[in-house]
């Protein structure tokens, strides 16, 4: 049976997120490249597109910002050479593997990527999340 996938998006021209930082309590900066659902959820797929006039690639990592604390902030996946030049990222998880990609309420998925040509490379992330039963 098809599962309802919640597609979430973010984009920018600078660096992506940081698993250790969501901004100071007194600033009004939004969260960058962070994705979650209100309850338990599965990761279904990842799509990251790079565009713009800049050049260069860098390592893209997908990390868990665990609700339980930094002791459990594991790196889930690493893609080397992500950026300009046919270096988009598409990663999909087969349906029978979803049970291995389950996250708890309060967990967040964070993309980390240091822009090698900040301001000239645009990134756009789409992430498919499925609410867990």
């Amino acid at each position, binding site marked *: 049976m098809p599962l309802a996938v919640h597609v979430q998006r973010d984009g920018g021209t600078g660096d992506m997120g940081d698993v250790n930082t969501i901004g100071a309590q007194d600033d009004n900066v939004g*969260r960058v490249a962070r994705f979650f659902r209100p*309850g338990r959820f599965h990761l279904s797929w990842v799509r990251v597109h790079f565009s713009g006039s800049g050049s260069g690639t860098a390592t893209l990592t997908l990390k868990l910002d665990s609700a339980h604390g930094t002791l459990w902030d594991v790196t889930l996946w690493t893609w080397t050479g992500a950026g300009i030049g046919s270096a988009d990222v598409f990663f999909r998880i087969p349906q029978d593997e979803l049970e291995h990609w389950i996250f708890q309420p*309060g967990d967040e998925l964070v993309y980390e990527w240091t822009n090698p040509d900040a301001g000239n490379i645009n990134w756009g992330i789409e992430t498919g999340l499925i609410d867990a039963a």
Partner: protein
Amino acid sequence: MADTKTWIGGTSTAYATAANWDTVTVPATGDTIIYNHQAQQGCLTGCDAGSDGHTYPKVIVTSGYKYGLAANGDPLDPTAITKLYWSSAFAGTSYLKGDIDDGTFESPTGEAGVVSIDGTLNHIALNGGKMHLTTNADLNSGDKLLVMTESRGVPSRLTIDSGVTLTTSHIVMNGGEIVTLAAPVTLTVNGGHAILRGTAAATLINIDGDGVVDWDSTGTIAMFHVRGDGLLRSIQYTRAKTLTEGHMYGNGRVDLRGKGGQLFTLTNGIFVHGANSPLFAPGSVVAVS
């Protein structure tokens, strides 16, 4: 006589230069102003003096307009804009001042820039793109709503400075993200993500659908209702907070587990009306007064 004037920027970036407008006259009260694909450069200078004192029934900025509008310290500053339609493809920041009675903001691309507004706003719809309400802005929605959605795949993002007046407003979110340092009186989140920061308080928060509110601020929440699959979280920071009363229904969740532990002063209580309404508060201290 009221007219429609289109910015062409034929000779410079100066608002008050007649040759920069298609009719070779600078807009006056009652004119409709259009910024579109005909622009050869941005309308950036003299905007304050050039527009001050005028009322424009319509200001239209289309996706063909790829330049900035006005500048920091020199905003487009009419007395009032009756209706504003904004869809610029400019990636930087544009600056508006004065009252906007009815505004729709859309984003034609994922890299759309920020509209920085310092004025009194009524009935604003943000359908994708970024908006920043600066310190002196007044979101005077009254019985009208600020609607946040995601349009054409572009999330809406609204940032609100601490000095913004939200005293009569009812903010409704259907998607996107709000980060506010100012206190919304009533905040309804049917989808998307609202983040209260600094000392932002709230009189009433309604969460439904899959809406999420991060209560990162130290301000008091007087009342909340969490329904549907909604979530109220307070998990990132450790400063003490005060909650008067909360209600949970259906699958609505409340998560108060501070990573470093935090103290909540609870006046009336959190009332759980649904059998599936989980309340998490490990690591936190809830004091009932």
